[in-house]
């Protein structure tokens, strides 16, 4: 392979990596909020799926990608409100409700998809987020293909990382958020409204999750298929843990896990002897190793998973 060939393979690999990492990164960034507040939402898979469908359906009906993104965010917020209501106000088990969200997402999107688009038909053409052409930058050799041929949604997602990092670690709101996840009773004593913080965190995380799903169906691809998230919500959960509950860590984890995916595509396409399934296993094994302390200790917020009951 010549050097220029290698460079072009590598640059398109980075491009694919970034695209596969984005849905995971968006959902995981949102989960930094909810996990930090003490909410464990394993239903993010279902939320992503509903976001993916909502994006395509809204774009089909409204004819605008940006408007449908707004609809996706609203739906995500409603789902987050519903989730937090069930686990905080109704004090239901977070894991159980998370599972129910996954089932609900799968059931509703499959049904609505058939109702709206019919069965076995070609996917409708929708307005989606297409790669932007940035003058000069996009035309640069290597760097252009790798970093500057992405959709606007990708750049927005990247901007969110430092923003979320700033909010969680440098502001009062972030301090309150972390206090609620570590020691809700103490937070309550100093006058933080624990329930309110959890509602906001739950809603924000589901908004991110829904947008992550919509990225999948409107930027990485431009159609919806049944169960298209295929476990990405769980990878996002792994990315939060592997990324030690920080947005920068999440970015690294998502790019790493995305690279794993991109590698397994390459392997499948090239008919190589390396088993792609074992590569797909890597994110989960790494996360298990992190949980066991082999790859840097991963310790989550102390008050995870329990509803706060005021005395």
């Amino acid at each position, binding site marked *: 392979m010549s050097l220029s060939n290698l460079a072009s393979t590598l640059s398109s690999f980075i491009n694919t990596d970034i695209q596969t990492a984005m849905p995971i990164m968006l959902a995981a960034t949102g989960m930094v909020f909810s996990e930090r507040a003490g909410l*464990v939402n*394993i239903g993010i898979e279902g939320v992503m799926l509903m976001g993916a469908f909502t994006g395509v359906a809204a774009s089909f009906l409204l004819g605008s990608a940006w408007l449908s993104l707004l609809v996706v965010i609203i739906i995500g917020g409603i789902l987050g409100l519903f989730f937090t209501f*069930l686990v905080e*106000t*109704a*004090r*239901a*088990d977070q*894991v*159980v*409700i998370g*599972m*129910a*969200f*996954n*089932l*609900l997402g*799968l*059931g*509703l999107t*499959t*049904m609505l998809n*058939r*109702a709206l688009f019919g069965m076995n038909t070609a996917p409708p053409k929708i307005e989606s987020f297409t790669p932007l052409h940035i003058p000069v930058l996009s035309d640069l050799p290597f760097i252009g293909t790798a970093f500057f041929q992405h959709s606007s949604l990708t750049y927005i997602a990247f901007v969110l990382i430092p923003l979320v990092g700033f909010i969680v670690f440098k502001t009062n709101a972030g301090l309150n958020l972390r206090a609620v996840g570590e020691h809700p009773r103490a937070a309550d004593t100093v006058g933080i409204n624990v329930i309110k913080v959890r509602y906001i965190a739950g809603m924000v995380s589901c908004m991110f999750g829904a947008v992550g799903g919509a990225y999948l169906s409107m930027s990485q691809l431009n159609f919806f298929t049944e169960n298209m998230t295929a*476990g990405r919500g*769980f990878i996002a*959960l*792994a990315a939060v*843990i592997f990324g030690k509950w920080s947005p920068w860590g999440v970015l690294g984890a998502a790019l790493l896990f995305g690279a794993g995916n991109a590698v397994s595509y390459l392997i499948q396409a090239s008919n190589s002897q390396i*088993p792609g*399934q*074992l590569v*797909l*296993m890597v994110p*989960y*094994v790494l*996360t*298990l190793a992190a*949980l*066991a*302390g082999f790859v840097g200790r991963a310790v*989550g917020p102390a008050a*995870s*998973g329990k509803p706060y009951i005021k005395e």
Partner: protein
Amino acid sequence: MKFKNIVIPVVAIAVALIFGAIIIAVMGLDPLLAYESLVQGAFGSVYGVTTTLAKATPLIFTGLSFALAKKTGLLNIGAEGQLYMGGLCSVLVAAYLPPMPMILHLSLEILAGFTGGGLWGLLAGWLKVRFGSSEIITTVMLNYTAMFFIAYMVNGPIIEPPGNLPQSKPIPPSAIFPSLIPNTQLHLGFAIAILMAVFYYIFLWHTRKGYEARVVGLNPEAATYAGMNKNRLVFLIMFLAGGLGGLAGSSEILGIQHRLFQAFSPGYGYDGIAVALLGLNSPIGTVLAAILFGALRSGGDMMQMVAHVPLAIIYVIQALVIMFVAAEYLFRRFGGFKQRAAKLLKGAGKHESV
């Protein structure tokens, strides 16, 4: 089981079915026809009933798996992965050991399935005891690890020659679970599942270890105070719960599929959570809830055919049932509110009469 306890699941099912009917109606379809064909499909014939019980079989195992761990205060989300490892171990014994008498073959493959799933569950227990890792997260990670491991196995090491399809070779007749009723899907696995429900009852309520498990689940501090070794109990329970999950995979592969292929479970492990929840972690309740979910699956096909309602509606109904049961606190609070309101009204009435 107290009557009061049964009210919530029954109300939850009723409310979920009503919501489901509304969704069907909104889609412009006939909800009555849909439910009629669902019941007809699930219970209207010998074929329907046996299919319902066959579909309930893996759910009884995974439901008991979640329930057993829950009774000990552990959340085993890992039945899905345990199921895959159980299926793999059973197939290895079933298809790759030299020929042997049926009774021996069946016993060995069941034992292998239980052990495979059990060790996978034990791994999560070990991570919890040794490193303090939450079993909720580790079991989720182990599910995907197991799923991709099975995919790897049937694409490589145990692919059926010449290797056109990603599946293992079929298991020999002596390894297949015999039918309980000839020419139906109902197989030995269902009988084993019922037996496990009985064992579950005996273990929890009539053995010393089972008693300790329940104490740890109800009050971990009291258990420590009473000198119970909590860590060893976590190992034991995660092994047993994993074993039950493993049997779900064994019974599906040995009773229905007769060979291993990737992604053979449509989420039986996760459905087990709903089954245990709806069955209030009791053995009878779990079996009944599994049969209900089995009926939704077996009747769903008929519903799709006759009433044109997509099969996916059963996921929605299942999700709603879980939400209503899990949010029972809300019902109780609402119930309490009604009682208070009644009291208040009564008081107001008295006041007026005075």
